[in-house]
């Protein structure tokens, strides 16, 4: 499973919906229940799954799933 698919799986788990299909353009307005509070659940779930830690200042700045994914890829690379 590639990283994007794995990220999709986390979205399904956090938002209790197996039918979620994210794309780089997906925003919080496209997923029901994605608000500032569930965003924290999502961040923690992603961090835990990939063993990384996002910087506090970037968490509030992502506007799309693509931006979150890019931050994630960068941290995974740094880990290696």
């Amino acid at each position: 499973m590639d990283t994007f698919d794995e990220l999709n799986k986390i979205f399904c788990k956090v938002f209790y919906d197996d039918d979620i299909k994210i794309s780089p353009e997906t925003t919080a307005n496209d997923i029901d229940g994605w608000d500032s509070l569930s965003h924290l659940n999502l961040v923690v779930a992603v961090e835990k799954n990939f063993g990384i830690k996002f910087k506090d200042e970037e968490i509030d700045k992502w506007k799309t799933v693509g931006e979150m994914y890019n931050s994630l890829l960068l941290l995974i690379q740094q880990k290696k």
Partner: protein
Amino acid sequence: MSEFKIINNQHNIAYYCTRHQCLTGNAAKTAFIWIDHTGKREVFTFEQLEKESNRYANVLSGMGIEKGDIVFTFLPKLPEQFFAFLGILKIQAVAGTLFSNFGEEALYDRLSDCGARVVITKKSLLKKILRALPRLEKLEFIFVIDEEENNEKVIGLPKLLAGASETFTITQTNPETPSVLHYTSGSTGKPKGVQHIHKSIHTQSQTTQEVLCLNENDLYWCTADQGWVTGTSYGIIGPWSLGISQLHYGGAYHAETWMKLIEEEKVTKWYTAPTALRMLMRENKTLFEKFSLKHLEHIFSVGEPLNPEINIWAKKVLGKEIYDTWFQTETGSIMISNRPGIEIKSGSMGKPVDDIHAEIISDTGEICSSSETGHLCLKTSWDSMFVDYLNNSKVYREKFKNGYYYSGDLAFKDEEGYLYFIGRNDDVINTAGHLISPFEIESVLLEIPEIAESAVIGAPDDILYEKVVAYIRLKDFHSWTDDLELRIRIFLSNRLSTIATPKDIKIIEEIPKNKSGKIMRRVLKAMYKGEDPGDISTLEI
């Protein structure tokens, strides 16, 4: 602008929000500008509001839904939310609204308690209802606004609406006819259904003029979700009963977008919440310099007490004062407020509106003297006062003593009649303007196999006013892990709602209780804040 008046003994709320506007020269006037989350803009006139809500009324009555039946909307902010709400009221069914972030347990509690016959929702939210459906015996139809297919209980609305007539005659509606149903949390037990009646339109309309000062040339923006009383009383009924044009925005909070909307749409009156204002306060000042708010005359706030710092910031950065307003789901409309024409006193929630008499009453039932803290009570009655807690009349009656409604808030009054909020006299948590019952969260926490006991409190928070904090005792042989914490958060978000999810979870060896087994939240609150818990003589050790 002329005052709201009842015509021909017709009291139906939806009549005044739609048909009456068309008959009095407002048919072509903008009822609302709709801007969706992508920025797509659409204008709906009062004539369209009338026709679209008529279609909903015809579809519902065609399916056998009748006066007194309970019909809920479970939708985010969308034009269909408004059409459906008004359509439900037109057939004299009871219109309930559900916050679109509710999880299956929150839905079950509300829909099962009132025995709702219908829920109107959208495809992406349908799953949450379907999970609760096997336990919802009285739920007959789930109408889906963006689904074409039908099955036994799930019915696609687009074809039905397209085939429905856009005319509907509202039958004479008695002022005492049940109208709107909102659920609110108490400190014990499940959420309670707060029932209003059609005559509430009088006070909702009156306060829209008296407090929000709306007039026919205004463009008014109420940011509240229709799942809460502000969203229906002041996002639908008050303004539209007076033919006021509104802005409705379907996106989430985003400082720059909000400022842009106020500037571009020329919003003149803005009704929002302290949490949103506190979030705006965190933004760099340069953001506000990019936008001109020259059309914005007044800002109003509701939901939680407005800290004096917000007003200082608003005067400095936005060049406006913010008028705090106070009301509850139960009161149905604004009861106490700061408003244009009355001097704002720092930290005060203002003075009672016309015809409302507020008193501070002591535990022994006496009127408190100036500056003495007591129970904030309102002399009964007023037109938007709730008429019952559904299936819970005993608790309803307990809210009234000696001709006063006891709000559950503690406050004091100064010599000039200004009221100051002190806190709640129960354990209800006010987080970002949403009232949350600790009991509801504790019950769901106990469904998690590792948890033996739980206690939930509200603790002060810079942005949310109060945050939810959960104390948990784990069962033997279980230990606290990051994984368990995440599971708890996700579970609560999806079973109840994200707003009910604790910001902080603490592990404790023993939940403090008194000798009769009641959780001593006072002790936990003091513990959380690092303060002295005071008298603990009744603590069970």
